[in-house]
């Protein structure tokens, strides 16, 4: 048994006679043989201020008719509305439902609906003074919910019991306006509205009818119409099905071998709705399990399930359903040497559906290709200017297809050459797929005997220990420039083009810093600044070489204060945008300000 509404509203005036009918409440059946018993359990709840024993209202156990058992006088009204400064006092009653006569302790567990009674501090108005709307309907919106697949039954009475009781001289008649073939019928004599057949939500989940009321008093006739809505409650009565019959998909693993990679996705539909809230309960409703007894497969793969609402329109009306997506995901990174193919089955089960075919089997054709760890056949050669300073970035090295790899950890190493010249080293950032060659010892660059240096580069896959080698030649060129006096050790400290291009600094390639002339007004990413190499700094990335020393490229790496109009970079690192010229004092502040600042050399305060 269940109520077709969560709450009812009704007005109660003072001095209405005991026995006065107030409200007719209906119950609908879950199964034919059930018989409804209505009961009022707890006290009267007075608009949350406090509760009070219920001396005034009772309900007919079989008919569900709420009536006044004792007239409400002015004193009762005042007592019930103490501490509630609202103009009218609202009291609440719980009506409980059971399929057998009631025992008191059942009040907690039984199904219930709430009745809001507005106590009005005046006697009932004369029928002639009421509008058609007040005579025909209360403030309550006529909206009901009916479970699908349940037996038919009456769920509402249009006629207001109190009006019918008091205004016998008026003729009040109702009609239910609805499209053809709608499963509802209005009974003229009882003014009851009945659902005439079992509903199927998957066919239609919402009915919008109109309740029309005609009031006749002598020659006068008044009409009023209000919407009459029925929502159909869903029950898990539909099995999962495949949208276009596809239950198989390929899942290829080649370069992307990283844990968490989504290899392939298959979709399952369900005509039923799936509530997302509370989350946990909806997750458990639909399961997706890998069917295998190979431990390697269950360790290496997992299935992730998400769902969202879609709409079906079986016969023109829109009905909510659910699209379930099952993703085959790598549960751990796969070694480069792994190489096999097999079919992986996933059993999707609608746990709450009790009919046949409650589950569907999905098939993923998995093929794991091996990948080779090798340098493409070229040997590497880089030229380095003898005036380059420490942390100058020379170039990048990586194996074939390196940029495509995910979840494969290749480390690069320079094997020390036999000669004594050893200016270059290699570094690799945590997320980098390549090695970065940089000048590590600039003093070697000045020694004339060091001209051309041969290195061996080794790349090793951490997981499989497989490795490969190639040759690297570093050629030193260029004539040595004179070292300028009192130059700062960081290019970023220079504020003007002149002082910038006169000096060197950590990370310079040719012995001199480079001036990047900005453009644009206000705060812009293209701010002016002095840099060891415009190509790598500032580029919004604090790369592994720049990260080694704050003086190399503070524009990309500073996490300190930036004074003046600016915008910080990703992770609050570096200067993404700046106003005018940005310059930095490594390990201290950075500044972004307009160039037209002729420092007051000695303003009035000196003296």
């Amino acid at each position: 048994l269940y109520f077709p509404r969560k709450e009812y509203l009704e007005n109660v005036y003072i001095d209405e006679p005991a026995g006065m009918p107030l409200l007719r409440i209906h119950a609908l059946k879950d199964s034919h043989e059930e018989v409804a018993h209505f009961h009022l359990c707890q006290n009267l709840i007075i608009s949350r201020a406090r509760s009070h024993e219920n001396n005034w209202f009772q309900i007919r156990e079989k008919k569900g008719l709420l009536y006044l058992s004792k007239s409400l006088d002015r004193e009762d009204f005042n007592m019930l509305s103490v501490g509630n400064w609202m103009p009218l006092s609202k009291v609440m009653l719980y009506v409980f439902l059971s399929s057998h006569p009631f025992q008191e302790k059942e009040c907690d567990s039984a199904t219930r609906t709430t009745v809001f009674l507005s106590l009005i501090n005046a006697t009932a108005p004369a029928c002639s003074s009421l509008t058609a709307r007040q005579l025909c309907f209360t403030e309550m919106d006529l909206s009901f919910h009916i479970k699908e697949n349940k037996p038919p039954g009456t769920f509402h009475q249009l006629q207001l019991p109190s009006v019918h009781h008091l205004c016998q001289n008026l003729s009040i008649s109702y009609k239910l306006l609805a499209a053809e073939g709608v499963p509802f019928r209005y009974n003229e004599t009882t003014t009851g509205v009945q659902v005439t057949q079992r509903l199927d939500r998957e066919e239609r989940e919402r009915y919008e009818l109109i309740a029309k009321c005609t009031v006749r008093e002598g020659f006068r006739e008044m009409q009023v119409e209000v919407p009459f809505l029925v929502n159909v409650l869903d029950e898990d009565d539909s099995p999962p099905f495949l949208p276009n019959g596809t239950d198989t998909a390929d899942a290829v693993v080649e370069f992307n071998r990283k844990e968490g990679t989504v290899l392939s996705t298959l979709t399952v539909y369900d005509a039923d709705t799936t509530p997302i809230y509370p989350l946990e309960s909806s997750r458990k409703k639909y399961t997706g399990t890998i069917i295998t007894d190979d431990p390697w497969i269950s360790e290496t793969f997992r299935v992730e399930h998400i769902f969202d609402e879609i709409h079906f329109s079986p016969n023109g009306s829109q009905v909510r359903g659910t699209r379930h997506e099952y993703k085959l995901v790598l549960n751990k990174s796969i070694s480069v040497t792994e190489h096999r193919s097999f079919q992986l089955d996933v059993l999707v089960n609608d746990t709450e559906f009790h009919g046949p075919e409650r589950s569907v089997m999905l098939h993923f054709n998995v093929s794991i290709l091996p990948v080779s760890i090798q340098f493409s056949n070229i040997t590497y050669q880089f030229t380095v200017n003898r005036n380059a300073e420490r942390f100058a970035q020379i170039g990048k090295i990586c194996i074939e297809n390196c940029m495509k790899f995910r979840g494969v950890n290749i480390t690069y190493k320079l094997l020390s050459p036999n000669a004594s010249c050893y200016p270059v080293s290699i570094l690799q950032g945590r997320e980098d797929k390549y090695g970065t060659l940089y000048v590590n010892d600039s003093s070697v660059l000045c020694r004339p005997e060091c001209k051309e240096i041969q290195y061996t580069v080794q790349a090793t896959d951490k997981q499989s220990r497989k490795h490969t080698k190639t040759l690297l030649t570093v050629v030193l060129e260029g004539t040595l420039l004179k070292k300028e006096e009192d130059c700062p050790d960081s290019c970023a400290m220079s504020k003007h083009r002149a002082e910038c291009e006169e000096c060197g600094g950590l990370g310079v390639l040719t012995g001199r810093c480079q001036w990047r002339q900005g453009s644009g007004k206000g705060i812009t990413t293209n701010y002016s600044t002095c840099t060891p190499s415009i190509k790598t700094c500032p580029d919004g990335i604090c790369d592994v070489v720049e990260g080694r020393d704050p003086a190399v490229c503070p524009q990309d790496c500073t996490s300190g204060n930036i004074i003046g109009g600016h915008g910080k970079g990703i992770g609050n690192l570096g200067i993404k945008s700046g106003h005018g010229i940005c310059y930095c004092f490594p390990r201290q502040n950075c500044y972004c300000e307009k160039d037209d600042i002729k420092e007051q050399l000695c303003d009035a305060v000196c003296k």
Partner: protein
Amino acid sequence: LSRAGDLMALPSSDCVVAEQLCLSDSTCNATYRTLENCALAKTRLLSLDHDSRVRCLNAELDLGNSSLLHCKCHRRMKKQEHCLRIFWTVHSSMTDGYFNLETSPYENPANEEHWKTDYNKLAALVSGSQLAGDATNSCLKATHVCNLSKKCFRLRTDYASICTKGAGSEDVCDRRKCHRGLRNFFEKVPEDFTKRILFCPCQDEFCGERRRKTIVPDCSFQYNTKPNCLWLLDSCLEDHICKSRLADFQQNCQPVDMSPDGCSLHNHAACLQAYMGMIGTPMTPNYVSNSSVEVSLWCTCENSGNQKEKCDQILGMFESNKCLENTIWSQMHLKQTALERQE
């Protein structure tokens, strides 16, 4: 019928005072302790067995009409959260699980003292100065006036700097601190300033965007995906302040079809205050775009299953609430009639 007799039925005072009075009386003290356990059990979603349910109900009856039952809280009182906890302790068990809370724990706005503010003086200062620039943008003008009031300026900067920290880079802002900053702003700054900043009438989308961005929605309002409104409601009801603001909003912005202004209480000031009270809670509302005055919550009723009606009700409190809509329109002095607004 109140068993403990009329326990010091004082005029409605604030709940903190009422609690102290009750605790100093042995009977009331015992009753209050029972209610505290009932409230605690409820927050832990423990289902009460029949006897404890009866014990809780009787405890409420035993309170009779002691000042605890009619006590209220003030929006700008010092121990607001403590006061609200007491209120919900006393009113917890009656309508559990029912989200139409109706009775607001907050003092009726009419009896709240209204600040003497220097708004007009500062507004004149702004209008008089040629610094103010574009006078047609009323949101900008309201901001100028705020920026000239020490308190408004400082508390606005406080919430804005908290809510924008982490913006632009991928780390996410601290929503809880941002919400506290916003609540601080709307509670401590006189309404003369906050009402005009939040409900400024706009002629164009540029002004509308400033209005929409006032509460730094990226941090205080939006998530990357829209949660279900039922989840939003639950996270509100678990938090005393949000639950109280929601009760206040439901009471003061209660829509009624048959009343001319669409409101049951016809108190636009109280409705505005209640709406602003929602800002900085898990159910923070905001303008939906820069070209309309419609407001909404950041949630959806998709995937609500059989609870779609209840979910629509939650969203409907903000999206299709005639009382709230009329209140906002009237604050913006846009005297168009409702008809004009339909076009």
